[in-house]
């Protein structure tokens, strides 16, 4: 029988009925209508479904929705919208970081979490932070470039 789960989703409290074996990714997409989070494999191996759980990136396809009870969830929709983009979203656009874009929402969430805990990551740290986000199109070059650029922009903003 379905259980009820309540959590904070992009800053707003939501409550929904879920089955115990439903992943948060499925619940976000099919029960709550937030389609930004993508499902690429369903087994936690590709990172397309990455969301923030209490600020930490996790694969929402591996996280049973029941376990989100009382936690704070941030998805790509909560990262920034047109007009108020997160610096890393802006940088991804400018640097041509994405091609097909399917890995994008997960990658952006991973990148934002990295910059939140380390404002000046090294290239190695960037690569490590996104190692769980597979991208088949880009070879990661422009993605890494964009994340490093976003970190520099953020530094610039702080010093102003």
């Amino acid at each position, binding site marked *: 029988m379905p259980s009820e789960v309540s959590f904070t989703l992009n800053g707003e409290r939501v409550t929904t009925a879920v089955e115990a074996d439903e992943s948060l990714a499925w619940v976000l997409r099919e029960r709550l209508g937030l389609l930004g989070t*993508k499902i*690429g494999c369903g087994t936690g191996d590709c990172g397309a479904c990455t969301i923030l759980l209490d600020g930490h990136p996790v694969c929402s396809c591996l996280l049973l929705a029941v376990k989100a009870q009382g936690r704070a969830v941030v998805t790509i929709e909560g990262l*920034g*919208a047109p007009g108020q983009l997160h610096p890393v979203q802006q940088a991804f656009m400018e640097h041509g970081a994405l091609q*097909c874009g399917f890995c*994008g*929402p997960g990658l952006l969430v991973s990148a934002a979490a990295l910059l939140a805990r380390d404002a000046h990551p090294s290239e190695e740290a960037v690569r490590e932070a996104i190692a769980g986000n597979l991208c088949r199109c880009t070879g990661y070059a422009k993605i890494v470039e964009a994340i490093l650029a976003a970190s520099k922009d953020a530094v610039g903003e702080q010093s102003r």
Partner: protein
Amino acid sequence: MTTITHPAPPTVIEETPSGAVGRRVPRHDALLQVTGRVVYGDDMHAAGMLWARAVRSPHPHARIAEVDLLPALSSPGVRAIITGRDVPRNRYGFTHQDQPVLAEDCVRHVGEAVAVVAAETLRQAEEAAARVMVRYEPLPAVFDPLEAMRTDAPRLHQDTNVAEHIRIREGDVEAGFAQADAIVEEEFTTGFVEHAHLEPHAGLAIPSPDGAITIYSSVQRPFLVAGDTAKVLAMSQNRVRLIATGVGGGFGGKNEMTFEPWIALLALRTRRPVKIVFTREEEFQATTVRHPYRMRYRTGVRADGTLLARAVEIISDCGAYVSWGASTLAKASIHAAGPYAIPHVKIDGYLVYTNNPVGGAMRGFGVPQVGFAYECHTDAVAEAVTMDPIAFRLRNALRDGGHLPTGQVLERVTLAETLRQALEMAEWRREGRAS
């Protein structure tokens, strides 16, 4: 007439003045991408939609003795089930029309679809699919293309498993070998490779009251898929509309029709929208792959490093159906000798049916296989005449006005220029090297 809006808003390029060519303009949909608003196949939803799920063969080769749909039809939430008998013209293919939309008498590879279920929820569709009872009578199977080429091998289609033999002849290859100071022979093999586009195949079919159908699907070739779908459904092409959704990577894996006729049939039968999303497991097991090749190279060279003759034999494991195997092999064969001026060339490509996964189109279309072989072989041949691999390449490279073994003349050949620039960028220096 059906009026349906695009899954994504029409594309507007946000940029400034003309003189657009040559500019580093970000993608037109970059803003949609970074905000998670691109609509891919799996993002398509429609009110009242059903979920489809395929029933797939666990056997590499078997006769379908019986399909019992009754237990599945009584499974909760099930609205329709189709099998091969429901497909008006159950056969398609580009060069060889050897492939059924749904297997009818016989399955020829693991993961081949036999039936498709539509139910109210994905979970119900999965449950019902597990209840479709298919009785298989296993048939002898063959997995090694060399074995499959033998006359006593189990056959997949007609009298031979060799679906195609491509020949390219230039000069007199035996005469070329006779003049050679050294002959180098090597054999290369490559394995099964998956496209691994991150977005699985996914789509949604929406029926019109007048019996027309609109299919949203994540495909690289909307017109081919719509045309083939119309053909197998025996429908007029103007009544099968296909709209490509955002495509989450393709690399050749979304070249051809897969589920489109299934969901179209189910939608027309139930008069409800029907959605399908392949699992990652289905992507690996049931969709097309890059063909494994076995390639035998034999090259004759003069002591001064001049290439004289090259014979290449390619055996392509086609899998159970030709799909793009023949055209892939043609492209591979044409380029198998590499971008070199070789007076005497003989190339034979064989496409062989096996009960392995079906080979299809994948980025490079057979040339990555032969490219691996001819460029590694080039280094080995250079070594045989104790030449530096770069000098050897430059000596034998095709130049303007030179021609491939097909006789096609090339112009504006920039091999040497790309090599020069690459060496410079890589700061290539040969000094300080052992032996």
